[in-house]
């Protein structure tokens, strides 16, 4: 037994998990993410004659869609700005990983 206690005082700051430090949607490199309505989803799948399985995926925990209130299976529409070809669209299906 040593006379001195090995425990040193440590200060902890508690932060809520939901608080985002920085709103990534405001960043100029983050393109616009939008949730697709049911009707639009149907149309999209019909246009490309695919099932949702064939779409690229996006994690439901992706910082860029935290403000959207999404659930698994939703389709996210991403509008990317391209200096050469203007806007281009991209779609992703939300998964839980």
């Amino acid at each position: 037994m040593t006379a001195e206690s090995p425990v040193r005082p440590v200060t902890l700051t508690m932060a809520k998990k939901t608080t985002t430090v920085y709103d990534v949607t405001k960043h100029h490199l983050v393109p616009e993410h939008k949730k697709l309505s049911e009707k639009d989803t149907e149309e999209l799948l019909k246009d490309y004659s695919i099932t949702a399985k064939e779409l690229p995926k996006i994690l439901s925990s992706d910082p860029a869609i935290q403000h959207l209130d999404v659930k698994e299976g939703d389709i996210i529409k991403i509008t990317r700005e391209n200096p050469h070809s203007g806007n281009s669209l991209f779609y992703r299906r939300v998964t839980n990983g």
Partner: protein
Amino acid sequence: MAKDDTEETAEEPIVAVKADKKGTLQMPESAPKEVIPGLEGLETVKTEPAAKQDFSQIAFQQSIHKQVDSIVFGVLSPKFIKKMASAKIVTPELYDSEGYPVDGGLMDLRLGVIDPGLRCKTCGSRLKECIGHFGYIELARPIVHLKFIRVILTVLRGTCKECGRILIPKEKIAKSKELLDRIDKEEGLDSRRKAVHAIIEKLKTTAKCPHCNAKQEKIVIEKPTSFMEGERRLSPIEVRTRLEKVPDEDCEIFGLNTKSARPEWMILTVLAIPPVTMRPSITLETGERSEDDLTHKLGDVVRINQRLFENINAGAPEIIIEDLWDLLQYHVTTFFDNEVEQLPPARHRSGQPLKTLTERIKSKEGRIRHNLAGKRTNFCARTVISPDPRISINEVGVPKIMAMKLTIPEVVQPWNTEYLKKFIQRGPHIYPGANYVIRPDGRKKRITDETKEAAIEELQPGYVVERHLMDGDIAIFNRQPSLHRMSMMCHRVKVLPGRTLRLNPAVCAPYNADFDGDEMNLHIPQTEESRAEAEILMDVQTQIISPRYGLSIIGCIQDAISGNYLLTKNITKMPRHQAISLLISIGVTEFSRLPNKEEVSGNEVFATLLPEDFNFVGETKAHEPIVIKNGKITQGYMDEVTLGGEGSGFLLRNIHQRYGSQATIDILHKMFKLGAEVLMMTGFSSVISDTDLPQIAKEQVTTILDEAEAEVNALVASFNSGNIDAFPGRSRKETLELKILEVLNRTRNKAGAVVKENLNKSTDTAIMVASGARGNNLQLAQMAALVGQQALRGQRIHNGFRGRTLSCFKPGDLSPEAHGFIRSSFKKGLSPVEFFYGSITGRDSLMDTALRTPKSGYLYRRLANAMQDLKVEYDNTVRDATGKIVQFMYGEDGLDVSRTENGKIDVQRIIDTTE
């Protein structure tokens, strides 16, 4: 032709149906109703029985894509081995006294055909059609399968020796299963395997069975194939009875699917005998037969097995039986793997170890790395390459000796019989001759001086003559590393004397070839289909425009550029007759486009190569305008930007756009020759005096250098007196270094400007730089004025002794000359210290390239493999092989770069050029 093909494909299923009726293995539908263990999956691949009679339907069905639903890996059960076998092997003898295979021997005719002319006793098909059939032997005593030792051990350790239940209390079994299923679902199979392992690891120390309270003992492997329980050896019979007792539901926890892999099947009671087709015997020149290693090994197995049977039946003493049993175990083990530790490998009489099953598959010479991953091809050639600007861009020069070895099969027709007979007449040693004649039945005959006459005699339509390679034949030319599609292109053969493969220097760029000893490969397609495919998809013409940047990758290089630059810029007047002889030398005989004047300009000579209605507006390297109107150069001159390859060559791009690839190749070839011919006419030499500076310029350079040195000294002085403020984020020392580097680089640029200003622009060296054929202004400055600061990792050289680069400097010397500044020019020559600095950076960049090449090569390989099945579909989406979307619009803009000009489409010009 096409009709023949369909008939042929329809024939195969007939054979298959026959086999079905005989009730052998391959046919799922007429097989007994019961599900074959482990092969339930086969049911999904069944063809509809209704289609059995309709052959066309069968042919159609064969082309139907089947989606693989699942693959089952399992262990063959004894029952299944017997079911799939078409012969029971009972005797080690191979052939009877007449040399005929013995029934029930290892070369039994029911196991497949390996002799030409014979028919398979099982399926009725001939050599090469019959893939062979398995046989089996009934083993007199069970034998441990070497490759399953570890699984057997874990099952033995994890189950009770009395009741066979898994050593987990009843109530916890369900829980364990649940846990495994959950892990499987959440983390995948790999994690499940780990979890299984973790559970089983705990079981082996269990002392008492939770089901029947029997005491458990420790089991260890005695290498290679024995199990020891405490002091006692477990015989394979005992092991097998224990494994039999393990219930199906307990096997599940061990990770075994009992439908396809019961643990007791890992102890062999019957041994499957591989078909003869995978162990063919070879007939030696003496007429003797030499058997495959596997056959030898199987012979041992069968022989010992028979002896064991006999001894058991005769009631021989236990010791003899035990010995034979161990011997049988040894033979079966080495049959599977002849490189087992602690077992002497089975050997030939010569002492060379036998190559058995595992050795066939494993390692570099094994099936996978040697035969599957490393396939080799015939009708190909490889040698050193050399340039030949006189052959066309889409030709390849093939040495005559090569052309006499590489052949093209030509089918004899009524109209070419006489033509082909002449080839046979000349034979294999006179070019152009022929090496082989193939009869319609597939027999191949070598043409020799003796067989010549007979071959000509019997030649008739339907025969095939393998004639020597000739001019105009199609070949695929390739240089490794084949990083892009232009690394393999289709060329026309041009048979030439000499011993190297020749290529037009204009195609060096796509192959990334030079002639410092590079070798290249040549492939000769052997069928009409492959030749057509090569011509349409891989021709040099089709590859002019690179899909990487949408500009020509094939273009003029070196002399061709400087020649045309001289012609169009400097030669304003030349006698008409000289122009004509110039044009004739490049193969142009049409002079109506050449103005009918006593003297013509170089521009007019060059313009005769352009199409008459060609219009072009562009810029030169020096940003001067070029205008071509109706096939005449009205302003400007030609240089690298208009004629070159590799990301320039705008003129070529426009010609390609309007007149197509064939015209571009023709024009390019003429331009190339013209450039070279012009240089031959005028003479062109790079001389040391080309980089001579006038006295004033020399003095200017010296002043600039002295000033720089003074400036650096001033910087060092103010650093030492503490007058330099550090840049943000840098120390004072670093700041000083940055400032010095900036001064020295500025010095070199200043000197470069002086050189550019004062160097004679009419020298041939300067012309090469100005036309873009070779070299740049920086290199000129290095030759004429100074080499400049040598940088190591973006900094001045600091390596060497402590505090100094070389021992001839004082420690702490910060002057330019002590840290890699070379103030001499290459022409003047470097001092020893300067030369040493140059060597430092030279070695560094050498090491850098040597280390970077394999790294970037591997990176590229991974990218290429990851993206190889991506494809642009008709709806413009990019999808992978499973149909998953990767991009919704190819490249986000849907542009095919190879159809653009440098990635852009000039809409204005399209409007301007379409009336």
